[in-house]
């Protein structure tokens, strides 16, 4: 018992020393062979898994030693992992926030510890941008507007320049949900004021919930809508099921989804889905890895770098294959 107690006391003193201000040395170490810790959210989603894979491969190219810590989208857990990670004295940290708001205190902690930091995938409120050296990830406003353009094209193809749609969004209040919807509605108002959004329901990135939500929306406006926008392809998959169950042929609707995830690819190929917007986990991972490498090489790095967000229709669906590991 007393043995471990001594250990504690010792470490306590040790820690006080450690806490005492930035570790200047690591700041300018070259990327080659330096130690990077990736704090990512989970293995349990295709996007996240591919993101991790791509990051590791790219990092290897730059000769980085990467250690990965995973939590289950649990911000509390992630906060602890940050402390843990700082304890291992890495040359740099790459963080995928489990929650874009909850991460802020940890970011500040990392800043005060003086460890170079890349934030990937989810962009915290930009007023805290001084806490990170680089952000790489999707531009959700851009994503939203691209999907709006896709929807408009779809209507044009069917010879419509006005009509009605409804929208399924992610968990209310999360940045991607807000920003994608913002981009989508703005572009829609500018370019096709004739297309009206009759209703919006959260599908919470969940297919089953989306099915029920869509079902109720079809109940309300079934006969009035010509199109649906879902902030993610798997939610759109739910919409398609709901439509079939409601006796509506999905092909008769202009269905625009998002991410070009596996669900989207299948639906695009069999023609039930009209379009989606590619947000490639591969790019996401690679960008993050490059950012951290450049950072360690002491190169100049943009505070914010967005991923490209190309529109994908049946014709371009092959572009998604790497993204879905096909």
């Amino acid at each position, binding site marked *: 018992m007393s043995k471990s107690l001594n250990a504690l006391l010792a470490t306590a003193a040790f820690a006080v020393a450690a806490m005492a201000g930035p570790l200047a040395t690591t700041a300018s170490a070259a990327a080659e062979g330096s130690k990077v810790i990736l704090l990512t959210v*989970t*293995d*349990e*989603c*295709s996007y*996240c*898994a591919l993101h991790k894979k791509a990051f590791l491969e790219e990092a290897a190219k730059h000769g980085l030693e990467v250690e990965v810590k995973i939590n289950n989208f649990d911000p509390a857990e992630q906060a602890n992992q940050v402390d843990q990670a700082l304890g291992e004295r890495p040359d740099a940290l790459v963080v995928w926030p489990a929650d874009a708001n909850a991460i802020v205190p940890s970011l500040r902690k990392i800043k005060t510890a003086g460890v170079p930091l890349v934030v990937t995938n989810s962009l915290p409120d930009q007023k805290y941008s001084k806490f990170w050296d680089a952000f790489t990830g999707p531009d959700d406003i851009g994503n939203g507007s691209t999907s709006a353009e896709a929807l408009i094209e779809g209507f044009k193809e069917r010879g419509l320049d006005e009509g009605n749609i409804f929208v399924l969004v992610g968990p*209310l209040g999360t940045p991607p949900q807000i920003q994608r919807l913002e981009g989508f509605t703005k572009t829609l108002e500018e370019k096709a004021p004739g297309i009206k959004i009759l*209703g919006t*329901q*959260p599908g*919470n*990135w*969940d*297919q*089953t*919930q989306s*099915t*029920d*939500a869509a*079902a*109720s929306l*079809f*109940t*309300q406006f*079934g006969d009035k809508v010509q199109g649906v926008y879902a902030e993610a392809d*798997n939610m759109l*998959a*739910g919409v*398609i*099921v*709901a439509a*079939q*169950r*409601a*006796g509506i042929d999905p092909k008769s609707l202009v269905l625009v989804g998002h991410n070009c*995830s*596996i*669900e989207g690819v*299948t639906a695009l190929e069999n023609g039930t889905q009209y379009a989606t917007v590619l947000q490639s986990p591969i790019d996401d991972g690679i960008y993050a890895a490059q950012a951290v490498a450049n950072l360690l090489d002491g190169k100049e790095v943009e505070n914010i770098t967005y991923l490209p967000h190309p529109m994908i229709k049946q014709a371009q669906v092959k572009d998604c294959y790497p993204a879905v*590991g096909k």
Partner: protein
Amino acid sequence: MIAMTQKATTAMPANPSSPLLQRFMRPDRLQANAVKLVTVLLLLWGWATIDNFLSTANVNAILYSVAAVGIAAVGMAFITLSGNLFMLSMGATAAVSTIIFATTLHLGLPATLALVVIFGAIVGLLQGVVVGWAGANPIIATIAIASIVTGAGALYSGGLTIVGQGDASWLGVGTFAGLVPNQVVLFLAIAVLAEIIVERTRFGRELRLIGMNPSAASVAGLRVQRTLTIAFLVAGTAAAVAGALFASQAAQGNLRLGGGLDFDAIAAVLVGGVAIKGGRGRMMDAAFGALFLAVVSNILLVKGLAFEVQLAVKGLVVVAAVILGALIGGIKR
């Protein structure tokens, strides 16, 4: 306690006049009957206040949303009836089943379903052994199993959404004779089968008696462990089938599918009027409980209220059911 029994006796109906009303008011059936009545009233109200509420589209929506939960609820009812409260591993079992479903769909729907059922049976059996033979606390044991199953599933699937190579539309969106969804047919079949098993077989009789009074059951030489094990096995299987229904929607498997299944099933069982103390209630009660909840959810949805409200409502409904059940229990005493 005294205060309660007083309340109870005042709540006791002043000797109901017609025999029909009497049947309805029988303490042990009161709640179950009340739920059925309320469901009907809700449907009427919805039909009156919400346009195209009873349209085929929406009726289908309701039926679809009841199918999976209903099957799980019937499975859960076996556990509750046996006096082991609840099985909190149904959501996990269902989720992993979706993965299995998707990965094996290329073998064809029947084979896939068979595999899923086998999986559920094994998981259930495991819990049956832990609770029935090792005498572990059912709630905690099933929570533990839940996390083991989920963990294993995640490790196996790498958490990826798995897209089935094959056609599951017969189960997903197919309909029987062009009107009733196959899922609903399956649900009804299972519910009726369960009802028959519990009401007419030796196993069912033993299950009920064990739920009523385990020590008397063992003195009477009933096959306690065996029966409990089977009950858990059935429940596990039901959960897996529910998972198959989720997966069949888009022929995909994902650990996020079938999240709230545990609570939905519990809510259905309790609302339906299956007694928590065990031994009382029928399989059909659980099924009707599920229907009731589905109708409520649908109305909330169509009225534009999001699912978080539904969660709260379900919770309150459960609390209410628990209290009501206890009071009725008081009437009996």
